[in-house]
């Protein structure tokens, strides 16, 4: 067998095993398990006590907006940290670049503010 085909074979075997494994697990499970659906079974398990309300308890929507904006702006810090550690090396060039970057981020914040998302209702 040529090298060319053997390389493909590795891939095919690997893919085949992956598909087989997942298929076997899922298929075996659905074969073995009895399927008697009652509405009781769909209920969330809460240590034997009947659950109260929905599985997904709700928190107020305004937390969501703030949390989301925090995540978005917080993650942008991954670009600021490398720059901050090598501040002198990047000199004016880096300063200008970072100013542009932060300015664009600030535009996003500005938009959110004007849209009234930052007001605690």
């Amino acid at each position, binding site marked *: 067998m040529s090298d060319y085909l053997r390389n493909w074979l590795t891939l095919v075997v690997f893919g085949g095993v*992956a598909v087989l494994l*997942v298929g076997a697990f899922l298929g075996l499970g659905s074969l073995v398990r009895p399927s008697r659906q009652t509405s009781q079974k769909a209920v969330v398990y809460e240590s034997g006590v009947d659950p109260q309300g929905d599985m*997904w308890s709700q928190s107020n*929507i305004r937390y*969501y907006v703030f949390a*989301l904006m925090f*995540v*978005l702006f917080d*993650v*942008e810090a*991954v*670009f600021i940290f*490398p720059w901050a550690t090598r501040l002198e090396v990047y000199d004016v060039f880096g300063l200008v670049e970072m100013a542009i970057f932060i300015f664009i981020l600030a535009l996003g914040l500005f938009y959110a503010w004007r849209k009234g998302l930052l007001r605690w209702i």
Partner: protein
Amino acid sequence: MYLNQFLLLSAALFAIGVYGVLARRNGVLVLMSIELILNAVNINLVAFAAFGNQLAGEVFALFVIAVAAAEVGVGLAMILLLYRNRKSIDLTQIDLMRG
């Protein structure tokens, strides 16, 4: 330390993520599974960069983190929008369009 260990970990995470996307019906959990795949990619990138003695992979991982955050923001907002209209985030109920 061998490169293969990292690659196996990453492949396992990738497989778990794919399984989650395919098998989960809850929108938020599907989103989490996608994040899992992205993190599998990050492990790959950083491992390759570390073993290849270069930076490109690590820089790429930073970009992936930022893009993943943006994706989560958009995705959660969409799931929220749907929840307001539907009172459910069960993806199997998204069936208005059939052809």
